[in-house]
């Protein structure tokens, strides 16, 4: 008998009915808000998790803002971009001083800009999804992770996020390799419980929140 059979047999021999009711679990009221309240909640929660949020009205200004971010953090003027049109088709040509390329990140990249699929206001969390235009390494290798988030993509609760993801992936058939739910920059408290930022993932998470 294979281990698979052994385990299944053992489970079938031992399992007992539970009598536990099958009721819908509570969804926290906190995330069940709309419009401006939802946007404000997202900003509040993300900021509390040490992300920084910059409101953007005109997407054309994004390369400007990125340039300003890089220089204010004393970073070299280059970054790796997602090839998603929302990012790649921005007027980077107006900023020839910023060297950019698209593709997955390497150990040499200091900063990346990638779009979020959605966000969850309940906990100030970004949802980033792997794909040919949004490689996962953009979220983790560079020290500075810049994320473009459309305000219209902010969901209130996780339940809304899952509904949207199922719809976007042909009812789960095209589910991606990686879904990253990211709440703030990387940290560790493994040294005497002292909270330190920038463990292995990005030290900084900067959210460009596009008001659309």
């Amino acid at each position, binding site marked *: 008998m294979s281990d698979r059979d052994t385990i299944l047999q053992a*489970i*079938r021999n031992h399992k007992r009915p*539970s009598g536990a009711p099958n*009721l819908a679990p509570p969804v926290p009221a906190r995330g069940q808000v709309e419009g401006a309240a939802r946007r404000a909640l997202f900003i509040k929660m993300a900021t509390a*998790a040490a992300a920084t949020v910059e409101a953007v009205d005109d997407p054309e200004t994004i390369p400007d803002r990125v340039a300003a971010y890089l220089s204010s953090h004393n970073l070299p003027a280059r970054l790796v971009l997602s090839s998603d049109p929302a990012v790649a088709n921005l007027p980077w040509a107006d900023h020839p001083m910023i060297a950019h390329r698209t*593709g997955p990140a390497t150990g040499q990249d200091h900063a990346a800009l990638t779009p979020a699929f959605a966000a969850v206001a309940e906990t100030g969390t970004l949802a980033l999804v792997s794909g040919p235009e949004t490689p*996962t390494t953009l979220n983790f290798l560079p020290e500075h992770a810049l994320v473009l988030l459309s305000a219209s993509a902010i969901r209130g609760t996780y339940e809304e996020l899952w509904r949207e993801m199922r719809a976007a992936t042909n009812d789960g058939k095209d589910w991606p390799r990686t879904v*990253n739910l990211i709440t*703030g920059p990387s940290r560790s408290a493994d040294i005497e*419980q002292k909270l330190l930022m920038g463990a292995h993932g990005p030290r900084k998470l900067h959210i460009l929140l596009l008001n659309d």
Partner: protein
Amino acid sequence: MQPTSHRFTDNAHEALNNETLQQALGNVRVNFIEKRRSAVEALPEFDALRKAGREMRDRVLSDLDTHLLAFEAKVKEHGGHVHWCADAEAARQTVLKICQGAGAKRVTKGKTMIGEEIGINDFLEANHIEPIETDLGEYIIQLRHETPSHLIAPAVHVTQKQVEETFRKAHRDLDPGRNLEEPSSLLAEAREKLRQRFLSADVGITGANFLVAETGTSVIVTNEGNGDLTQTLPRVHIALASIDKVVPTLEDLTVLLRLLARSATGQEMSVYTTLSTGPRRAEDHDGPGAYHVILLDNGRSKLLGTEKQDLLRCIRCGACLNHCPIYHAVGGHAYGWVYGGPIGAALTPALIGLEETHHLPNASTLCGRCEEVCPMQIPIPNILRHWREEELQRGLAPTAMRRGIGIWAFFARRPALYRLATRIGARMLRNFAGGKGRLAQVPMATALTRGWTDMRDLPAPSGRTFHALYRQHKGQAGRSGK
């Protein structure tokens, strides 16, 4: 790892007298307890979520095979592989085969308690494959040749000074004169050292906090991002999971996610909650080429349908450890194997046997704080008591204790005899106290009575029993009297 649970009392003695450890443990109760309390207070639905999560887990466990099979089918649909392993040896061999098949020389590891349970690091090394821990706490203890002492904070027993010593000893290529006073400089050094390891690993091994049957997904929850680098950069991703990790849907997952970080560290959500499904897709530009999930039984299926089944609801948050007075006093290593604290005391006998571990369920006052804070409402004190019953039935309990309880029970079941014995006992103890009101030692002392009087006085009885006085007064007054 070789268990030392049988010498728990000695382990505890050493731990209590280890000043460095005691200093480190002091941080645990101060930080974890308060943070959890704040997080719970900030979510009005917390208790309702606990109840819902518990019920969902119970439903899954009552039909575990169905959910595991559904999970397996989905994993395969997305191009992944599922390996069922009945015990630790099978799991080790399976991991090795996958690594050898990939020509792996170097393996990065995200934090995995199942990895500890099967002793995968030593095994890989014995087979000439280098395992590199990437979680900061795990990295520290790997350098120190230690094992984790907590479910989510593996190096909680190590002080900052010890981390510095360890890094200086291990990172010989760096300038010995460098300043490592600030913990941030220690972190920066670890980050730097591990960055190259991440990028050159052949295989990445992670745990899995949860498995989602709906999508064939394994979920990891970290704050550092090391698990993500571990499972994204190498050619192969192996996720180690025990069979109790599966949940049916993404909504079910969400209930547990809402409970986990709050119970563990007091965060609303951990920084990185990552859902991994299959290998990279044809059009992806990064991600592993192969994805393997190891489903480990190792003694869990036989807990189903028993009074210990509730242990399988555990979501490894560590709240029970953080609130346990025994854990506060002796730390995780004293328990002698992989899992410490209340869940360790309750689960370990099921995994490695009661003969080795019978101290663990006994070293508890059954204060119930663990059950109170457990997000899955696991009745740990009840389960510890069941182990004590089994210990007694199997003759593993120490003779003196067994006899003592037997004699005591003989009297307690016979009120008339009991009255007599207690009247004599009360008088005797009071006389031994010689009017001082307390005894610094008990005559005819045994190891058990010295357990009290070595460190405490024993207040003396007042000399007469309540029942004797009551009868006397009732006789005098004709009804219950003063």
